[in-house]
């Protein structure tokens, strides 16, 4: 093994460096979500979200059996799959996106496993994707994928859940790359009227044990929720609340305006 082949398992990758730099400058991080393949002009939406104040963007590669997702994301995923998108067509489209901020792929493990860890990691890197979230690949199973991802320069974000012990959260934070995805509710993705107390609690627990960016996702539905969580967390992921507007027919501009409103909420603090 030459020195160049040694995986940089402990170094800080470009995604994490980007998020840390912004955070350390006193900025709260906003990571909106786009379903690859829904709506048809989703690549333009990724660009628009970047201009509306996102710090990074989650792009999903839809999977047939999205275990971690509630009805809103499930519906968008199935519309996208119904329109015929594939992991390859989504990555091809991503390659053509002029994004102002890093992109993070979100998909389920079988997509990576079926294609082969090495090839999938390399394909993500070639498309210009900085990180990956595989919500059904927990700490104990992540090794073989994460090694290939590390080698390809794709940072594997891990989820940290409110049900985890303190000792487990420490191990999750150690293996996480890019940032730590704090699961804000005991549940699946979906909008909520009220911010769950668990969202602030998990952020607090994680901030006490890691210096990596701690970003809360699941259940963050309004600019006020975002601002409240970000008093403790370094930022938020917002998915279902954005997709809901699109499914309800409010249109592209309404989704972009909503991202801008989330930005304003976070900046207001």
């Amino acid at each position, binding site marked *: 093994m030459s020195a160049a082949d040694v995986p940089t398992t402990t170094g800080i990758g470009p995604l994490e460096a980007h998020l840390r730099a912004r955070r350390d400058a006193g900025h709260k991080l906003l990571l909106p979500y786009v379903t690859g393949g829904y709506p048809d002009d989703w690549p333009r939406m990724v660009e628009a979200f970047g201009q509306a104040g996102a710090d990074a963007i989650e792009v999903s590669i839809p*999977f*047939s*059996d*999205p*275990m*971690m*997702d*509630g*009805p809103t994301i*499930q519906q968008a995923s*199935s519309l996208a*799959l119904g329109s015929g998108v*594939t*992991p*390859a067509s989504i990555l091809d489209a991503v390659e053509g996106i002029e994004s102002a901020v890093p992109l993070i792929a979100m998909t389920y*493990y*079988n*997509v990576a*496993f*079926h*294609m082969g860890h090495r090839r999938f990691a390399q394909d993500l890197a070639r498309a210009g994707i900085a990180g990956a979230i595989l*919500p*059904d*690949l*927990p*700490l*104990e*199973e992540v090794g073989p994928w994460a090694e290939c991802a590390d080698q390809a320069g794709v940072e594997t974000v*891990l*989820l*940290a*859940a*409110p*049900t*985890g*012990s303190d000792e*487990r959260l420490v191990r*999750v934070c150690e293996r996480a790359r890019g940032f730590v995805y704090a*699961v804000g*509710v*005991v*549940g*699946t993705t979906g909008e909520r009227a009220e911010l769950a107390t668990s969202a602030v609690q998990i952020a607090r627990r994680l901030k006490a044990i890691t210096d990596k960016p701690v970003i809360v996702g699941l259940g963050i539905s309004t600019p006020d929720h975002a601002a409240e969580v970000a008093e403790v967390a370094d930022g938020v992921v917002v998915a279902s609340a954005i997709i809901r507007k699109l499914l309800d027919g409010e249109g592209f501009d309404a989704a972009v305006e909503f991202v801008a409103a989330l930005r304003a909420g976070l900046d207001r603090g």
Partner: protein
Amino acid sequence: MTDPNTDGASLMGTPGSDGRFGDFGGRFVPETIVPACEELAAGFADAWADPAFRTELDGLLADYAGRPSPLTECHRLSEELGLRLLLKREDLNHTGSHKINNVLGQALLARRMGKRRLLAETGAGQHGVATATAAALFGMDCTVYMGEVDMVRQQLNVFRMELLGAEVRPASSGSRTLKDAVNEALRDWVATVEESHYCLGSAMGPHPYPWIVRELQRVIGTEAREQCRRLLGGHPDIVTACVGGGSNAIGIFSGFVDTDAELVGVEPAGGAAVARAVPGVVHGSKSYLLQDEWGQVTEAESISAGLDYPGVGPEHAHLADIGRARYEQVTDAEVIEAFQLLSRTEGIIPALEPAHALAWVSRARADLAGRTVLLNLSGRGDKDVGQMMEILR
């Protein structure tokens, strides 16, 4: 990396903490439920080693479920097929199938672990009925997810579950069958993990489920082995069972895995995951899985809702991989014929699921001539009579 220990004695032991059977198994679930899986594995190991737990379960199996189930020699059908056919009569269990063995054990375990709600998925409805039954018996809340398509196919079982006090929730995404009911049950569990026990219905899912369900269904194989010893003075030449997720098959196989009996699992042609042998990961474990060229899970298609599943439990993938068991496929038309055949010759109306195993025996009868075949009759056909009436009349 195939398990080098392919000799019978080391098969079907306790899996390691990674829940692997050779290359298969594992725990591919959201982080939120990993601690619950760990707790469940520890809770089961503890309960299974506790004589008081075992005694209580044995008592329930005997006095409530009606075990041991008999072994029936099929004289007329044996003559017709030119072989010796024995049926392990899981159809005579309370609630009508082998599913009760698993559920009574898991419900006892859930109570021991302080859970007050059971949730389950169901295809044909037999596992849902069994879970609703146990919940009624123990005074627990119960929610059962069932695909919308299956709710239409198996209306009688939907009504049964409701009578038993369970809430049946339709799974309306995807193929609206068992696969989607499993997704919904897993999502429910992710959201309610602190108070709910997910009573998974087959030898599949994340570790520790394939192990727990196999141990709870082992009673079928243990009884059958002793019954065969008494009747045959040894063991049968062939042991066969239908395979959806694989629980009734793994239960009866467990009694004979260390003998030289041939183990034959029978899948529906429209859902033959093992026969196609493409590995994949869904519903928490790595196993053989029906999927397209991108790893999207494709829909199984079978006349029997209980076998309408695109995957198979990981231990079956392992048994196939090392050559200890083999897996055959039969068509819906063959199943319909077998369903009528057993009814007419032996006065036993089988569920459509075990009719798959019989369909294979019937087709393979020339190869099986003169040999002794033990078939796990996993359930009775009451639930399927309405559907068959429409097809046959």
